[in-house]
């Protein structure tokens, strides 16, 4: 039987949501960004809640095997506490909410603090959920183990009459594989690049620095393909990752057939100077970009990237200078396309980007109907 994995990127504006569907059917969702007003038909952003719900219904499921929040910024968690069933309070349960069998979060997410008037923010609700699951000892993996979290956890374990090492197995350190998935059975493994403990040591944790970064390695009938899944990491964090990985002799974990570039194509993931036409990447970032394999794809989870004067002066990502750099390096390694989630197949009506991974390589599926079938399968503009 031919192994077929899928990686799906959803058009959720400057935000992230991707899903991996493994050949055996297990589903891993990275981040969740339901754009406000996406339920309206004339919005280009996808109605993520409705889409994922329908997708799961087709698969006869009411859960994801894993939901990973790379970090707690709004564009990675928005709407999640209304969509998922949360175990820590009854008000987040039932009425068709989607279950999370295992929650993956960076340690920083358990250490979030907020003013009294911000206690109902989604990042606090998710913090509560992660803390609850950790204390219960079920359905969670926490990435990195900073002292602050240990200090929070130990007294509570003692209170429960449990040993202080009773939750050790739920922590995953950078530079190791995430337990629960392996190449033989699941045809996939997740190698954790980040966060490191040092990202969480300061009093003010910077979410982007402490976000999840994985090398996802797929196996399809004996062939291997690498997907670099990066949260909103900056060039400094990425250079640290490259440096550490090289020092440990794990260079192969830096290569990519598919690269989900950080932070909606921000130049800050390449270097500190935006540049006029291109962003000059820092040396180790250049190394990382050259680790792309032939026929590789790059995906920017962002708004469309224009190529006009205004675009070059734009402050918020996506940055066209960054895109130009990515495209340059993609061409150098013999890659295929630089894709933008809000541009495929068209800016007017973007649709999920679906990659299929088989022994023969990574291909971009052209699922979108064109011409008459496209008209029939969507709501036509109102006629007067």
């Amino acid at each position, binding site marked *: 039987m031919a192994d077929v994995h899928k990686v799906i990127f959803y058009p959720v504006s400057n935000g992230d949501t991707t899903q991996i569907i493994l050949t055996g059917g297990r589903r891993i969702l990275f981040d969740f960004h339901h754009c406000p007003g996406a339920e309206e038909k004339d919005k280009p952003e996808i109605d993520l809640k409705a889409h994922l719900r329908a997708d799961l219904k087709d698969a006869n499921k009411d859960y994801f095997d894993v939901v990973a929040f790379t970090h707690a910024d709004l564009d990675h968690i928005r709407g999640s506490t209304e969509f998922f069933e949360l175990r820590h309070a009854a008000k987040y349960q039932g009425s068709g909410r989607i279950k999370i069998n295992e929650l993956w979060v960076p340690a920083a997410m358990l250490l979030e603090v907020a003013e009294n008037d911000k206690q109902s923010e989604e990042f606090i609700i998710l913090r509560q959920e992660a803390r609850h699951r950790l204390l219960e000892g079920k359905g969670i993996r926490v990435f990195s183990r900073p002292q602050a979290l240990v200090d929070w956890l130990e007294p509570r374990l003692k209170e429960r009459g449990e040993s202080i090492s009773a939750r050790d197995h739920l922590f995953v350190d950078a530079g190791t594989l995430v337990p629960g998935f392996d190449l033989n059975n699941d045809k996939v493994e997740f190698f954790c690049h980040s966060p490191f403990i040092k990202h969480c040591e300061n009093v003010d944790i910077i979410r982007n620095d402490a976000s999840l970064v994985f090398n996802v390695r797929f196996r399809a009938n004996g062939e291997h393909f690498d997907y670099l899944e990066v949260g909103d990491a900056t060039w400094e964090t990425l250079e640290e990752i490259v440096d550490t990985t090289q020092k440990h002799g794990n260079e192969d974990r830096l290569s990519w057939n598919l690269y989900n570039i950080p932070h909606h194509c921000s130049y800050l993931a390449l270097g500190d100077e935006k540049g006029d036409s291109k962003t000059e990447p820092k040396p180790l970032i250049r190394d990382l970009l050259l680790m792309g394999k032939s026929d590789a794809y790059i995906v920017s989870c962002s708004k469309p990237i224009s190529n006009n004067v205004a675009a070059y002066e734009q402050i918020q990502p996506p940055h066209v200078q960054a895109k130009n750099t990515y495209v340059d390096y993609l061409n150098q390694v013999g890659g295929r396309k630089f894709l933008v989630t809000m541009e495929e197949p068209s800016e007017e009506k973007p649709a999920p980007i679906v990659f299929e991974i088989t*022994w*023969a390589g990574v291909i*971009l599926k*052209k699922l979108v109907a064109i011409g008459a079938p496209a008209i029939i399968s969507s709501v036509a503009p109102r006629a007067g």
Partner: protein
Amino acid sequence: MEGVWDFPLYQQEFDFSRLQLPRSKQLIAAIESNRDFKLSAVACGPVESNCGEMLWVSVESDEVPPNNRWGILYREQLAIYVPLDQNKLIEVYPLRKSFPLTPHQNQHGEAHPTSLCLYFEPTSSVSRTWTAPKFLHRIQWWLTKTALDQLHAADQPVEQLFYITPYELVLPWDYEEQIKDKSSNFTLAYSERFDKKATFLMERADKNSSAKLAGIFNIETSPVVHGIIEKNPETLGGLSAYLSRKGVDFWGLLKSYVEDLVPSRGVPLDHDSDYTIVIIRIPICREEGLTPDRFEHKAFMVLKGLLQLGVSLSVLCVHEKKFYKDGMAAKNDHAEIYADQVGVMDVLYNNNIQAFRKYSNTPPNDPKMTLIGVGALGSAMLNMWSRNGWGKWKVIDKDHIKPHNLSRHTAHAMHVGMSKTDAVCHLYRCVTAGAREIEALNADANELLCSTSLEFMADSEIIIDVSTTLEIPRKASELEKLPRLFSVFITPNGNSAVLMAEDDARAFRLRTIEAQYYRVVINSEWGEKHLEGNHGSFWSGASCRDISSVLPYTDVLVHASTLADQIQQASLSHDSLLRIWNRDPLTGAISVNSIAPQKEFMVIAGDTKIYLDDGVREQLFSLRHSALPNETGGVILGYYDFNINSLVIVCALPAPEDSVSTPTSFDRGVEGLLEAVNEASRRTASIVGYVGEWHSHPPEHSTNQSKHDIEQMIYLCRNMADEGLPALQIIVGDNELSLIYGAFNYQI
């Protein structure tokens, strides 16, 4: 840089607006709005030529897998040629010289690039719906599907490129078997058509035939695991090089083959063939080292006779208008024939039985069958079965073809005077060319049954009676040794068809299904006209013996199609079956009546076997029940067949309106009775008629005859005796029936 094809007649230009042809302009517009295509250059055709225009593009196909086995790339450079003539298809040439040879490419000679074979349909169908954007998608579709190995047309040999050739060669279905016999001779029949294209039909010849040489030279290459796609050679030298790569010494084999064709007495010049066809047989194995499981064939045509080739190769010489072996000639170089042109031929195969079945999606079973009767209906069905490869057939018929038969029989004028069995066997073989055999017996099937000479049909799994007689199904029902029987016929007016099928275990015989058929005809609205047009002789309409009968062949074929299909379906079921199809002659609408046959009972009364079925019993109990507490009764309808000493009861009629019923008596009236009996007889072509009386007894009373019943029986016997028939009385009780049957004996 990697080699790319160039087109010397076309000068690349970068002002895209220079192109003038409407389709070129449409393509440029479509490429501009397609993100996967990029236009790099264009060219107008050479001035004062009839050439079209050219576009150079690159295309990206995201669904082409990087590691596809053919080596098709994500980004390919293509030349798109737009012919001047709007009716000609646009051609697409991959520009890389290293572009893989895959299935579905057209070859245009060794020195030219191949083109993508984008459509399966003929040009006119493609141009009817052609648009430039769809054409671009089609190119991506071709690249992707080819890369994924999903581009398959039926029976396209994996080794072949498409090559537009005027010649096709049709090999016998069992060519590989025949070739094993080294003494096999073949003939070639040749048909040329209006457009100068021709078909060579290869057939096995009589071994002793002294006909002109067929000019066929067979070569077998060493086995291969997968066919490799190669360009076709265009000269004899190229053919030799092509074969040499497959481990074959073409010149050596040809020389010794040609030498062997010429005995020492020589061969007259005009016995040489006009051309030579070289057939290359390539054994294909599933895995390295295994025995080949099939062959692929390629054929090339050389416009020189075989013996003439021998002369060119210096192994033969010509002397006094004869070819002789040339023992003296120096075996010198024969370079002069290297340049002789060879033409590729399309190789086709006559259908083998699997092919016949595949093309028709024939049902999975393939039973041994005997067909009794090959008249209009039988021959039409057999013709259909010869084409779908269903059934291993034997046919029996005693008649021969007369001129008037041609209006609704499959026979041709050449068959007049032949037995019908010989005629249909000839036609069957004309279709199957021996891929399936057929056996025939020119005899009277009824006589065979009566004398129990059943050897011919003994090994059949099913016998189909298409005799249009009553005798055969009724007689066959009596015989235990026979296999399952089906009977089919068309009604005299040509509007209906009937299928009766016994079950596998023969618990339901044709004789009882026949009686139940009459019951439906009598009781159904459609039965009123079902058998009309009979001339008092049953279902003779489908029989060609009656020279005066009128039945259009169209009607025969409508029903033959239904029946041939339904017989196949019935053979897949183990159950008995009765189906009647009625066709509205005005609109052609056909409706079906499907009746589940009922179980049959038999009572032996002296020499006579009386048959009735569950349906009759149910009817009698039901009529009695609805009349309670009074008695009721009526007449019994049925028929006698003294050939098989049987009385078959078809149904009962209810009490006429003027009957007098009390809880202890019943006087059957007459109102409408004669009409009802006559109508039943009319509807059944005079088969069914009055055979006796029935009445009911009150609850908890026996079905023994009362005094009145005995008096009635005597009355019945007396009157039936006038027709020489016995009398029948049926008494219906709570749960039982009594049958009283007998002849009045004046002596008592």
